[in-house]
């Protein structure tokens, strides 16, 4: 199979996230980037498909801080090729991202072969809409499904499991080639020992390609970024259990609940 995995870097929430004082963006001072969790799932799903059906896994990422480490790790895990699309993408929005990736995939040619499958995260913590998948599929003119948790390929079609709210699952059949937004892989992402990552650092290469950026990187302007503002306040009832019970009754009466 011709498997493509699109990897997206997201801010690491382990570090403190602050809004920059001068612009509607995150403060870059303590910002670190990591691969989005569903991105890791998409990679795992691709590696599982490669193990089952053979073929190649090409991991593709837009240039971003710390992205090399992620690409080398993917190579160490078993990806065949790693491609970085050069450029400054810090202000990129989903629509333009879809165009850039589509341009790369079309140029790669094999992306639209009969056994091609493009996998990406269905969401990311800084992109809950997950619009990039539909945009990309539209540009490529192939089907799309997201929130996918399982992929079974037979010949030129595949059956996928898609999750819905309330624990519902649906099974769909899609033709190949296609784009899938992965929620979780069939198995937990594998561990890759550091020795293998280091070996990849020495022996493997990341290809850097240039894609002509679309005319507009952003279609709407971000006006303000702010931390959630506190709404109502919790009131702590203190004292002996009896006193707390009395106060609780008082509050409930006040609120007209009893």
């Amino acid at each position, binding site marked *: 199979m011709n498997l493509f995995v699109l990897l997206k870097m997201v801010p690491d929430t*382990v570090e*403190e996230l602050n809004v920059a004082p001068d612009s509607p963006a995150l403060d870059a001072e303590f910002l670190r980037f990591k691969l989005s969790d569903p991105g890791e799932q998409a990679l795992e799903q691709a590696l599982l498909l490669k193990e089952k059906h053979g073929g190649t896994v090409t991991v593709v990422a837009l240039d971003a801080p710390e992205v090399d480490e992620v690409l080398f790790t993917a190579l160490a895990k078993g990806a065949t090729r790693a491609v970085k699309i050069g450029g400054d993408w810090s202000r990129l929005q989903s629509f333009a991202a879809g165009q850039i990736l589509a341009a790369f995939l079309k140029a790669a040619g094999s992306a639209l072969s009969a056994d091609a499958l493009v996998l990406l995260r269905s969401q990311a913590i800084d992109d809950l809409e997950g619009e990039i998948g539909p945009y990309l599929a539209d540009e490529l003119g192939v089907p799309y499904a997201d929130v996918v948790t399982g992929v079974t390929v037979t010949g030129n079609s595949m059956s996928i499991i898609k999750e819905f709210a309330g624990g519902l699952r649906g099974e769909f059949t899609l033709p190949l080639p296609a784009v899938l937004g992965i929620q979780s892989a069939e198995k*937990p992402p594998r*561990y*890759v*020992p*550091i*020795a*293998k990552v*280091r070996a990849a650092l020495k022996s493997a290469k990341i290809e850097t390609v240039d894609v002509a950026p679309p005319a507009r990187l952003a279609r709407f302007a971000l006006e303000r970024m702010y931390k959630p503002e506190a709404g109502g306040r919790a009131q702590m009832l203190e004292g002996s259990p009896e006193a707390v019970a009395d106060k609780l009754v008082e509050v409930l009466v006040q609120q007209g609940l009893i």
Partner: protein
Amino acid sequence: MKSDPVTLLGPAGVGVLWLLTLLAFGIFGRRIWQLIGLLRQGRPENRFDQWGRRVAHFLKHVLLQPRLFNERSIGAPHFLIFWGFVLYATCFNWSLLRGLLPFLPIPYPDEVKIVSFFLEIFAVLVLGSLLVATMRRAFFAPPHLHLSLDANFILSLIGLLMLTTLFGSGFRLVAEGARAPGWSPFGNVLAELFADVPAASALKLSQAMWWLHMLVVLFFLVYLPYSKHMHLLASPFNVFFSNRGRLGDLSVQGTTEDFGSGASQWKELTWKQLLSGLSCAECGRCDRACPATASGYPLEPQQLIQKIKKHIVKAGLSGKPAADAHEPKLIGEVISEAELWSCTTCLSCMERCAVWNEQVPLVVTLRRHLVTQGAVDRTVQDMLANLTRYGNSFGKSDRMRAKWVQSSGLKIKDARKEAVEYLWFVGDYASYDPRLEEITKQTARIFQQAGLDFGLLYEAERNAGNDVRRVGEEGLFEMLKEKNLQAFAKAKFKMIVTTDPHTYNTLKNEYPWNGDGVQVRHYTEVLDELIQQGRLSLKKKLTGRVTYHDPCYLGRYNGVYDPPRRVLQALGLELVEMPRHRHRSYCCGAGGGRIWMEDTPGIKERPAENRIREAAALPEVPTFVVACPKDIAMFRDAIKTTGHEGKLAVKDIAELVAEAME
């Protein structure tokens, strides 16, 4: 009247003896050659250095066997059987040589009075020892002693050798019509008993005893390399070639091969690791000491060694395998993954093993293969990913490492910015675990009040990698080590102090200090020194009875037993030892990465619970003192789960020192 024993079969006797000797030595030699061939297929490892230390070690542990005496019932019997064997093996060869080459102008060993005397004395001592050994096996066998038919059969064979000697001596005296109560004390008794036997018959019987003796020894020779008694041949070499560095050292000397990926099949084990199984005497000391075995985890160190032995003999010696023959996989089929992950690397098996096997490095070698395959528990995987990214197992930002300093209100030097005498390497647990924050602050206050010139690496500190290495993630260990070394290079300090024995162990023994003269010390060592120098003002004399738990990585790994005890004494506390203390201390169950793993369902009790019950059984001891941050976490938990809350309290030694300084 003297008559050669071989004349029993007439002149043909010598021929028969030659035939049997060639046959027995031939089979024995072939087998030994094959076994050596097996070892040669293992990976190389240089155990041919330090001859002086090796010889000294050999003399002590093969000839005197102190590790056998640690179990009273069998120590002396084994010692006597061993020395009986040495004597009898020498005399057998002497006797055989004399029998094969009748023209030699030498007597048979039992014709030399002094030799005959010792043969008889040892025959009786060995018979007595065999009786004890048999009784032990039959009526009071310790758990995990392998009660095999093999062992009983060998005991019987040895017994037969002793009896033939005594009866041979007795009948010879009868045949000669002589008595020798001095030189043949026990043969003489038998001679009195059988005085009625006609001389001719007695002569024949005495010769028959000689033949029986020789036959049994020749049979024994053939049988030995197929039995558990192989230990008799292999273990002296095993002891001689045992690691003369630190106990539990994970490095493999004298090789340029990359061992970080571990062993997936037996040929990837070192020759010394392959020798372990052949040396194992199936005594079960390791199993009896193992906290995983006692808790009902799927690990028995003895079985681990035995499984490898059976596997290599089967896979390596069963001739040409059929094309479709399936050789079971070393990991997964011969040894299960669960077995390997059960080990806490506490070293109590190795501390006890009478033949000096090296179980813990073996476990780590096999774990390395699992890590290479990515076959790691989910929780451990998360920890390793955290350690890779943030340098700590808590998955917190490295910038939060010294957050406790801010909230303590203390001013602590940054060793990267100004020179300090002591670099305090705080470690993950003491830095990040909220349960330990107060103890860490207290330790800092003690250091400050003692006027210790110390500083931290702040966010540049990374997990030292001790447990990462023991999980089998050698690459990550190397990475963490490099990052710490980079941070050390930027700091100015003379010594390192840490509260964590795991950190202490790896910094002290596994970091290359290249003659920098950097001393790594545990805080108990520093506290002990500060007290001795009078730099700690202990205003209040503490009273009461406490017990102290020796952390594995401080005690067994590094031999630090006395400093914490001296500190407790200086505080005025009465130390009551648990039955298992010092090198016999019982692991809390956290080591070797176990602290990151899920509890195994269905186990009997956790090691920490077992330990707390041991302490709780001490009369009127309300305080359980520890000197390891992980111990606080493990034992405070165990106190709750065993229902000893309010009866027994776990305290860090620093808490007690702080109390005395108030």
